[in-house]
């Protein structure tokens, strides 16, 4: 199984490959695009500018370093584009190819159709934004020339196993670490990055320092109900999934006061900072290996280099553990012990793929 690691700067590349990444993925946020659309309309679904490389010169360096070390570079153009954007996106495709990117990760059906017609030899991967939840969808995109599909976070291992059986010619990859948004990426139409739009350089500095990651690690380390007791009252917190909503619940039929209160508290828990904490799917890696998953994708282009390296090293060891012991219970215990050792805290049951 391949490990796919994110990068957002040239300096990351050599280190994440040395740590065990087989492929890396990244995007470019061109200045001209940002001038036209601002950061909140990203060409690659990362609305924080610091999550992307600043230029195609940087991409060229990324590719050169990666190829010299035997790793492939997947280039993200995985937003959804309107007609006026199609020409600009096509320019990005040309630039990415010129820089030497090995494959494109796309989500937009229009771009996919255009590339199939214009560049049939180009290797195309379908982003999670393609919303493949079933075998027929996978076959649909395969018929359009897609070679690999990143399945949405909500596809559970048995569902994926069935898809892989149904689509033997396709490669599938799964999210394995970080950013476990509860909404379906390809069906979610909320904005992100509004704080950067509002606060500009000051926000970029804070985001670049990775402070949100340390804060969310603290939330994760809390116990029981305290984890979901916090929600966003912080200025600058812009994710609609973490907003400090006032919540009211109405019943259409008969409901007890206790039921209404319980439902309200449960809904509120989803909008707590715990929902921003990074989940993990490593306990299922051996199952993914057995069913023929091609790649394990680490989320977090905007994370610091140190976080990326920890993630890749952790996952490399997990892949090494896979297949050694047929007992999944033993495997999972080993993975969880490794998590504690490498991250300095328990995983806390924040699972991508709960058992």
């Amino acid at each position, binding site marked *: 199984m391949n490990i796919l690691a994110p990068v957002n700067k040239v300096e990351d590349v050599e280190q994440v490959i040395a740590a065990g990444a087989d492929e890396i993925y990244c995007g470019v946020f061109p200045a001209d695009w940002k001038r036209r659309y601002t950061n909140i309309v990203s060409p690659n679904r990362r609305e924080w500018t610091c999550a992307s490389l600043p230029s195609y010169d940087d991409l060229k360096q990324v590719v050169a370093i990666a190829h010299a070390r035997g790793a492939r570079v997947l280039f993200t153009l995985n937003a959804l584009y309107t007609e006026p954007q199609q020409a600009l996106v096509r320019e990005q495709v040309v630039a990415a190819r010129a820089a030497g990117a090995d494959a494109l990760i796309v989500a937009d059906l229009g771009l996919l159709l*255009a590339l199939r017609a214009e560049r049939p030899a180009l290797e195309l991967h379908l982003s999670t934004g393609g919303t493949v939840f079933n075998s*027929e969808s996978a076959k649909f995109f395969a018929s359009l020339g897609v070679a690999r599909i990143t399945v949405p976070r*909500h596809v559970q291992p048995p569902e994926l196993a069935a898809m892989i059986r149904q689509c033997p010619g396709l490669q599938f990859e799964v999210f394995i670490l970080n950013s476990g948004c509860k909404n379906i990426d390809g*069906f*979610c139409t*909320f*904005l992100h990055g*509004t704080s950067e739009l509002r606060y500009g350089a000051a926000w970029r500095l804070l985001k670049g320092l990775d402070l949100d990651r340390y804060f969310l690690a603290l939330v994760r380390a809390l116990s029981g109900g305290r984890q979901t007791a916090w929600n966003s009252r912080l200025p600058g917190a812009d994710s609609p999934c973490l907003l400090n909503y006032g919540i009211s619940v109405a019943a*259409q039929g008969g409901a007890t006061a206790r039921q209404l209160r319980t439902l309200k508290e449960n809904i509120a828990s989803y909008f707590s900072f715990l929902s921003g904490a990074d989940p993990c799917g490593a306990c299922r890696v051996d199952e993914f290996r057995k069913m023929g998953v091609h790649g394990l994708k680490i989320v977090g282009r905007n994370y610091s280099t140190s976080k990326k390296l920890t993630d890749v090293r952790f996952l490399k060891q997990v892949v090494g553990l896979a297949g050694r012991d047929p007992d999944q219970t033993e495997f999972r215990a080993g993975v969880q012990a490794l998590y504690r050792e490498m991250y300095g805290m328990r995983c806390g049951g924040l699972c991508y793929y709960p058992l």
Partner: protein
Amino acid sequence: MIEHAVFVADAKALERLSGEYGRLYFGNEFCSRLLPDAAEVDAARRFARTRGMAFTLVTPYADDEGLAAIARLLEHCAGAGPELAEAVINDWGVFRSITEGRWKGSFIPVLGRLLTKQKRDPRIPGLSGIPVEAQEYFRSCNADSAAISDFLTSRGVGRLELDNLPQGLLRTGPLKASLYVPFGYITTTRLCFMAGADERPRYLRRVVPCARECRAYTATLSSRSMGQDIILKGNTQFFVNRSLPDDLEGLRVDRLVHQPVIPM
């Protein structure tokens, strides 16, 4: 001439339906567990036929299990009446089955609002200092791009389902469109907020069994920064916009899909 359709998701709501409509939308977009069964679809078709209404079957995105349930409904409906029924498609697997697979020619395919890709965040109208190109982007949808329009046309799709965006609409494509009023969807998940959530405290990141609690409860999420209240029903969040665009004809909108209640 604008066609007025009404969207009913729950068969029990049919008997309470009032108003004059030319078409009945029946089914679900967001959850395959809320799909009607064959008897309910038959009842809805009878209801439509006796009132002179055309019929549109609405289908959701789905996993393989849900896809099988959708397939059973399509099989049941294919050729069931003198006229082809419309099918609103919100899943590319269903799209494949209806436009090139087993049910090719059995339905009039319509691209659902999960696949037309508008930006629906209620904060958009309140954004300031946004360049014109970004403003136009927020009013558009990717299904209007030439490549997608041509593709859809080649597969027999002639209609897009669109939400009535608070920031306004901008159309660049040639296809006809339906406009959903007053509820627009913002986001959806398989990790339902309401499934089994009225009995005991829980924070879950898993797909859990449900008793269709979404039909018993509606939640409102209020935040000063959101611009308007969000309505949460089951696994999906909605905005409300009751103001229609002035120039429906110019937007190639020839159908309004009225939702007396949130169609869940």
